[in-house]
């Protein structure tokens, strides 16, 4: 049967994803043969104009699967993501990637999707072409295949910044994937999207993970983290207060702030 380009849209599991029935990805689902992306954060800290934003962060992320960074607003999640990705510089400690200090070559294998998509003032397809041209991959991903994956083939020639919020974020994700990243960072990529757009993004992320891409995502959506993540890094007051398997994090959180967060109340240590 002839396939229409839109049949590639990966929202077939949307309902399943949305009603939260799906269990956390079992370990067997993961592609253990994929190259490891081991991130070690050593004594990581960041102080900006006298204000301590992050401090004393010593954790090693799982080399495979999906790591979720969670925490209240202002906990330092975005800053931590930027430090790991290397688009911000720590004032203390360092990040190691597979036991090495990451170089520009390493970082060319990483891509990030921001909470507010940053799209070039060009057409939808030009936003993808920009990255394909910059990366000079020997076998570049096909632009139209990427657009089909996020359901934007029909809008290829439109001005990117006239897309809806959900479409813009899907385009940002497609552009990130055009980098062929082995590590994908997402900073609350679905925070301002409706559930259908969020489901499309979740499904792509999950599939990328199964194909071997290491995913490190910030989310304040506990249900999403439970659906997708293998481990949770819970931050509070600029440091990591809990780092555990998703399974145990969501059933038996050990830190008081995480308990409060999962119960949907603000954390007040003086109560």
């Amino acid at each position: 049967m002839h396939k229409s380009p839109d049949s590639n849209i990966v929202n077939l599991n949307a309902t399943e994803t949305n009603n939260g029935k799906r269990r956390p990805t079992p370990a067997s689902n993961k592609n253990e043969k994929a190259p490891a992306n081991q991130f070690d954060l050593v004594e990581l800290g960041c102080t900006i104009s006298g204000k301590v934003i992050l401090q004393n962060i010593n954790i090693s992320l799982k080399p495979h699967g999906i790591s979720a960074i969670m925490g209240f607003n202002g906990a330092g999640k975005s800053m931590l993501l930027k430090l790991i990705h290397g688009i911000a510089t720590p004032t203390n400690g360092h990040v190691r990637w597979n036991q090495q200090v990451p170089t520009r070559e390493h970082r060319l294998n990483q891509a990030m999707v921001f909470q507010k998509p940053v799209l070039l003032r060009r057409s939808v397809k030009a936003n993808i072409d920009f990255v394909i041209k910059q990366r000079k991959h020997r076998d570049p991903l096909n632009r139209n295949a990427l657009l089909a994956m996020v359901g934007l083939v029909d809008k290829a020639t439109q001005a990117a910044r006239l897309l809806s919020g959900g479409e813009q974020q899907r385009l940002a994700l497609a552009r990130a994937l055009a980098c062929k990243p082995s590590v994908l960072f997402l900073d609350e990529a679905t925070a301002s999207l409706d559930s259908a757009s969020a489901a499309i993004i979740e499904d792509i992320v999950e599939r990328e993970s199964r194909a071997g891409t290491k995913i490190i995502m910030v989310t304040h959506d506990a249900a999403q983290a439970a659906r997708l993540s293998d481990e949770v890094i819970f931050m509070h007051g600029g440091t990591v207060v809990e780092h555990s398997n998703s399974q145990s994090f969501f059933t038996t959180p050990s830190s008081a702030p995480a308990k409060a967060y999962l119960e949907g109340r603000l954390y007040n240590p003086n109560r």
Partner: protein
Amino acid sequence: MQESATSLALTLISTADPDLLEIIGLSLRVSLSAVGLSLCAGLVLGATLAIARFPGRQAVNILVNASMSMPPVVVGLLVYLALSRSGPLGWLGLLYTPSAMIIAQTLLITPLIAALSRQVIEDLYLEYADQFTSLQLTTVEKIKALLWDARYSLSTVALAGLGRALSEVGAVIIVGGNIEHLTRVMTTAIALETSKGNLALALALGAILLTLALLINALLSSINVSAKRYAYA
């Protein structure tokens, strides 16, 4: 007298008087060349100042902003001193040629292009910086992408430069000398022909100059409208 000057001016325009056309042609050639050269230098300077972080950057910004409002006569005087026979560039023999006028206007317009484009590009870079760093763009790739994405705003900057070049008289009169059939442009002709009582030519040129100014402004607003329409502003 005034009335006959007006009707004479209209005749000059309607009959496409060759002297009139020559003056208009030179004006456009000099100012468009100057804007072209200023864009080459000013956009690179503006983009570099917008994204580079080096000690003394703020001082350079202030300097560029200040030279944006340099009086044309002062620029003309400096270029005159450089090009005059005893000056350091006197051997080029450029004084009182269209080339000298192009040089003077380029020096006049470049700071304007640099300062305005720096502002435009800096605002855009504020939005793009994290994404560009994430993509590991080189400085040259960043500058190219920013210049292209700021294309609408930057074309209004270029038009602002053209407007200033076409309407200035101080610089071109000093280094060009308003020599008939050689360096006479619209503004110098208006300035000097009026004082000689040749009101018809002055009036005709004044009308053309006004029309050009209107056209430039119309173009400016249509650029702004389409930039908004595509959310490229």
